[in-house]
């Protein structure tokens, strides 16, 4: 398969402007600024069936069309580079290796929705990555691709990077906007939606880094070319973040719709130490876990993953072998959400706390069998009752682990300890 989003693997120094230009760089932006009207750009992207890569899979062209035409207020484009969903590491490599691909996607987006200012929101830990994209922005600005009068078109686009400071919730789009405005990252009640009232009270598009990186290729080669890659309703390539117990973990650009089995045994070089597969966390830690049988028949695209009751999320595939303690995995997941809940909504704040407490007891072998039903009840009360979906993001995994790996929970309770920790490991830890 031709590499599209990870061209840097074939083109050394793609991050340098001259190399980028020599490889058809900014040709799509030129086309969008000189040969296309904003509505043509939006239609092309709509026709391509490009869907958001940030987790919700929303059609990108449709999102852009919600921005009021001829808005009296400025329109903002906010690019989500918070990349904090456990298991996700695609944007990181994009910032490091293809910053101009990101910038070009942003330019075209700004032109499509009538925006003159874009912010790239980056997680606080992305220090190296921020230096990379800031250097590319400086180069692009010096050569007239960013700033006043982009490429002599008479159209201005400023692009600024904005660094968060350690808060998973700031990846949620309305929290991201609050954080951009210099506040705590508290998700907002909706409506109003960002398209009407987003950053600084103005119409705003929020898109993921990877989503926008697809745009120059769609503009260059057309919607029909794009739709022909992978399933038509969910097309394109996907940056798949493969990690855990495989021999060759890493970032792989794959066509949508690849079986997870092939990712493990072919792309990933098989199971680590030749052990047996136990399950997969697909999409990111926010989504239901898959058992062995489900993992081996799962097809990795938005709709197929939904059909088996999980999600493609942000392209995560965390592989777990037979020695993995699923109770400990859920405990670590619960700890994460409890740590990251912003605390605005009672069901989320309290629910995350209870779940973590129960999971700590479970893992230590001090759990009780009734607590398995309690975990389900707490989760049911969290879903759909909160400002944002962080609450669902722990509730859904809890229910999936408790249902699919119930035997392991029971074993912890029965033994009064974790069956996966050997006596030797326990002695070491003591």
């Amino acid at each position, binding site marked *: 398969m031709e590499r599209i989003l990870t061209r840097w693997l074939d083109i050394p120094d793609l991050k340098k402007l001259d190399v980028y230009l020599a490889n058809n760089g900014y040709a799509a932006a030129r086309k969008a600024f000189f040969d296309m009207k904003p509505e043509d750009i939006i239609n092309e992207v709509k026709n391509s069936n490009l869907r958001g890569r940030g987790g919700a899979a929303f059609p990108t062209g449709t999102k852009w069309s919600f921005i009021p035409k001829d808005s009296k207020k400025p329109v903002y484009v906010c690019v989500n580079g918070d990349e904090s969903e456990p298991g996700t*590491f695609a944007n990181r490599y994009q910032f490091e290796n293809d910053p101009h691909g990101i910038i070009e996607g942003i330019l075209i987006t700004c032109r499509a929705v009538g925006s003159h200012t874009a912010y790239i929101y980056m997680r606080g830990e992305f220090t190296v990555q921020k230096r990379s994209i800031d250097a590319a922005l400086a180069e692009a600005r010096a050569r007239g691709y960013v700033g006043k009068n982009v490429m002599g078109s008479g159209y201005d686009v400023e692009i600024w990077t904005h660094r968060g400071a350690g808060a998973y919730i700031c990846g949620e789009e309305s929290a991201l906007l609050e954080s951009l405005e*210099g506040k705590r990252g508290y998700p907002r009640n909706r409506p109003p939606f960002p398209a009407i009232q987003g950053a600084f009270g103005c119409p705003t598009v929020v898109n993921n880094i990877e989503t926008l990186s697809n745009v120059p290729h769609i503009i260059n080669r057309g919607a029909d070319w794009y739709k022909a890659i992978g399933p038509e309703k969910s097309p394109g390539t996907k940056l798949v973040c493969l990690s855990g117990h495989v021999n060759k973990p890493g970032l792989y650009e794959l066509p949508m719709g690849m079986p997870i089995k092939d990712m493990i045994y072919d792309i990933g070089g098989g199971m680590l130490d030749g052990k047996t597969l136990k399950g997969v966390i697909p999409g990111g830690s926010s989504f239901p876990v898959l058992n062995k049988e489900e993992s081996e028949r799962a097809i990795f695209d938005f709709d197929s993953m939904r059909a088996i009751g999980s999600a493609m999320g942000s392209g995560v595939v965390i592989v777990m072998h037979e020695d993995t303690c699923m109770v400990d995995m859920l405990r670590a997941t619960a700890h994460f959400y409890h740590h990251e809940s912003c605390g605005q909504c009672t069901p989320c704040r309290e629910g995350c706390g209870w779940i973590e407490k129960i999971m700590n007891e479970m893992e230590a072998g001090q759990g009780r069998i009734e607590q398995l039903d309690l975990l389900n009840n707490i989760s049911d009360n969290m879903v759909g009752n909160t400002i944002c979906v962080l609450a669902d993001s722990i509730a859904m995994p809890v229910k999936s682990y408790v249902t699919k790996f119930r035997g392991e929970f029971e074993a912890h309770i029965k033994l009064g300890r974790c069956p996966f920790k050997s006596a030797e490991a326990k002695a070491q830890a003591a």
Partner: protein
Amino acid sequence: MPESREVKFSDAALEEYRSLLTHYPTRQAALLPTLWIAQREFGWLSEEAQAYVSALMELPPAHVRAVVSFYTMFHRKPVGRYLLDVCTNLSCRLRGADQIVECIRNRLKIGVGETTSDGKFTLDVVECLASCGTAPMLQLNQDAFYENLTPDSTLKLIDELAARDR
């Protein structure tokens, strides 16, 4: 040491702050980047540092405090010269993150969240740092990533850091 310096931005930092203001339609939006400058200048965000930012930006002190306490990367107490943030989230756990934490604890004789008595090292554990394909990993001083760690490579890193500016 940065802590003992007068709580005031250098000329270069002030310059950087002023240019930041041009990026946003409101002054408040520059708060996070300004706090980053402050943390770089002062090493951590003491009460005085927060008060300085609040005066500089003409923002209510309570707002600045609320923001600082929301974000985990802002230090509200001094940290060692070398801050080791080890990821203990899912993919890193599967590849042995707990052993990495253990070997650092044993070498430095400190617990998680603690600083060595010579002020050189602080150990902390953090959530996923977008480096799961090269797990386990740690971030040094909120900057470079050290990936595909083994207990040996971790101890070697600590030795190298300990030997620096001795």
